[in-house]
């Protein structure tokens, strides 16, 4: 990253000569040239960083008081809620923070899908992002097991049992995961360990994600390349630092609304019942952010097939840069894709709804259709669209459509005058 930063003070010079950290931050967080036309959908990268840091800090303190043992976990969480100073606040931020994290990541991904941010030359940013998403899923799932309520226990049972679908070695792998013959203390302890580890791996991937982003620079709503050395970009600071902070504050207000006024709305009441291996809850439902994938899992009548489809539903995202054959990035200039984009989103929400419903009757049939459509979107619609779609003409530069609007407005003003 080019920067015209020159260390001024003696201390800054001394440090920068040996480790150019200040120069690095100056280049990437201050002067970084950013397209000037980014809308508010682009603020979710910053919001996600905030979510990750919040989860790590609150999680760290919670880990100081939590006990990963099948007999003690549930009451240690209640100890945090009752006896630890501001323990209730830490736990509610952490539990709701997971939901907020997923809201933000889904919006972030939907933005990328709409504006074609995954396309050449940004394929690696996207693929690293898919890996971050995978790690987030694993982390959130294991975190939900830790309070050792009924949903924790039975959720863990259902998901770890999926490994038994693997041919030949399935049962051995499942027993190895459990550290025994059923879900119990050994599994809880290793989930706690991994739940502590994975966020730091996510953090590492986030650094790669941003690094890879700063090579070609941001995509933008027009989906066209910025003209180097033109008026197309503004420095990251203060333009986007301040804009991101404003968006983050709005996000935090919603976050605070959940934490302080309906902290248990997004959770399941059964998780306030201590885990009981002898009593299965009526409906085992995962956290809301897993519901679309849960629906895909259950749509397939075969266990192994369901697992494969569920994993494929996420894995297929990594191939998106090549499945989408259109050279035009932004949906603004792709009239057909734009419609299929909204249908895809509606279908994904439908899957989420179906994941929360019992797997019986009409729900199963709709789940199957929605699952098929999910894959058809990626495997058939996206590749074909690139060949048949007649895209709208792209502007020459980011500044052009903005200026055109201005000129038009000016003309209209003179015409009416």
């Amino acid at each position: 990253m080019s920067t015209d930063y020159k260390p001024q003070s003696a201390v800054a010079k001394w440090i920068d000569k040996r480790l150019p950290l200040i120069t690095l931050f100056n280049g990437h967080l201050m002067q970084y040239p950013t397209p000037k036309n980014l809308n508010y959908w682009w603020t979710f990268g910053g919001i996600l960083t905030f979510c990750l840091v919040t989860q790590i800090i609150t999680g760290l303190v919670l880990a100081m008081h939590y006990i990963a043992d099948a007999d003690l976990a549930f009451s240690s969480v209640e100890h945090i809620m009752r006896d630890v100073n501001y323990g209730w606040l830490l736990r509610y931020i952490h539990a709701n923070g997971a939901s907020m994290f997923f809201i933000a990541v889904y919006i972030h991904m939907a933005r990328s899908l709409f504006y074609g941010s995954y396309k050449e030359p940004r394929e690696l940013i996207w693929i690293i992002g898919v890996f971050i998403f995978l790690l987030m899923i694993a982390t959130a799932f294991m975190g939900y097991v830790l309070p050792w309520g009924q949903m924790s226990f039975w959720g863990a049972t259902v998901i770890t049992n999926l490994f038994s679908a693997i041919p030949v070695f399935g049962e051995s792998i499942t027993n190895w995961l459990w550290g025994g013959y059923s879900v119990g203390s050994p599994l809880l302890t290793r989930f706690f360990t991994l739940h502590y580890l994975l966020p730091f791996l996510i953090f590492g991937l986030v650094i790669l994600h941003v690094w890879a982003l700063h090579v070609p620079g941001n995509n933008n709503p027009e989906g066209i390349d910025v003209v180097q050395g033109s008026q197309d970009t503004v420095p990251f600071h203060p333009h986007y630092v301040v804009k991101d902070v404003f968006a983050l504050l709005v996000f935090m207000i919603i976050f605070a609304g959940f934490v302080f006024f309906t902290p248990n709305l997004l959770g399941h009441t059964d998780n306030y019942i201590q885990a009981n291996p002898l009593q299965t809850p009526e409906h085992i439902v995962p956290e809301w952010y897993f519901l679309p994938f849960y629906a895909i899992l259950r749509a397939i009548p075969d266990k192994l097939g369901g697992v494969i489809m569920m994993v494929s539903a996420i894995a297929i995202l990594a191939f998106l840069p090549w499945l989408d054959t259109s050279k035009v990035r932004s949906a603004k200039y792709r009239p057909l894709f734009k419609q299929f984009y909204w249908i895809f989103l509606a279908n994904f929400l439908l899957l989420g709804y179906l994941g929360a419903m019992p797997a019986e009757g009409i729900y199963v049939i709709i789940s199957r259709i929605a699952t098929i459509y999910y894959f058809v979107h990626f495997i058939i619609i996206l590749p074909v669209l690139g060949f048949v779609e007649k895209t709208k003409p792209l502007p020459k530069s980011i500044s052009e459509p903005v200026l055109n609007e201005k000129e038009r407005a000016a003309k209209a003003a003179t015409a009416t005058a």
Partner: protein
Amino acid sequence: MRRRGRRKLLLPQHSVLKFIKFLVLLIFSVSTFQSILIAAEIHEPIRPYWSFEGPLGKFERASLQRGYQVYTEVCSGCHSMDLLSYRNLVQPGGPEFSEKQAKAMAAMFEVETGPDQDGEMFMRSAILSDKFVSPWENEQQARAANGGAYPPDLSVIVKARPNGPDYIYSLLLGYKDAPEGTELDDGVYYNEYAKGMRIAMPQVLYEDGIEYTDGTAATEEQMAHDVTTFLTWSAEPKLEERKRMGFKVIIYLLILAFLFYFTNKSIWRDTH
């Protein structure tokens, strides 16, 4: 611009939009149908007024104190509250008994402690730091005494049931004579709000079943209301602090967001 020569794909926009509308309608109708089904199975709980609801909700101190009395005199014969200590009765945001009162309340119970210098366990009166004394030694004893049913611990029961306060309140008042043709096993009672209308707990609240120390008339509704308030506090003892803090946090964030909105506007003013 690309492939201008190709035939435009014939897919009228309005039909796609119609399809989306159809999907949305389908989701709504299915979900409505679902809720009708559930409603037919279980009665909607009664929704009384709760002082602790709403963004600035608080517990009614007197109701919490009466609720504790209902718990000790009626519920605690069968239901434990393992997560609570007698010291919690003094804490701000709870029933806020005086320390003297709470010590006296604790002293009504005996706890086993020890070992003493001879290695013997012994009994002593409970003190503020002790957990609420459980009516049972263990789950097996509780089941044996209750025809196989296990009276659940009540510490977080309100958070462990959908619409917790409404549900508990309704359940306590939901005992009716079983309609004709309903067969009930021994030790099973008819209750409109229980799952499958059957519950192993008998009706426990009867008018003037207890005598409130503050002279309030002990109607069934009053007792149900008080004990539910108490159980809501026991499930969420920091509720008042949480809502108070939340109010301040949101006001602070709103002011900060307001300032940043205008800062942002002024920074971008000269960028077109």
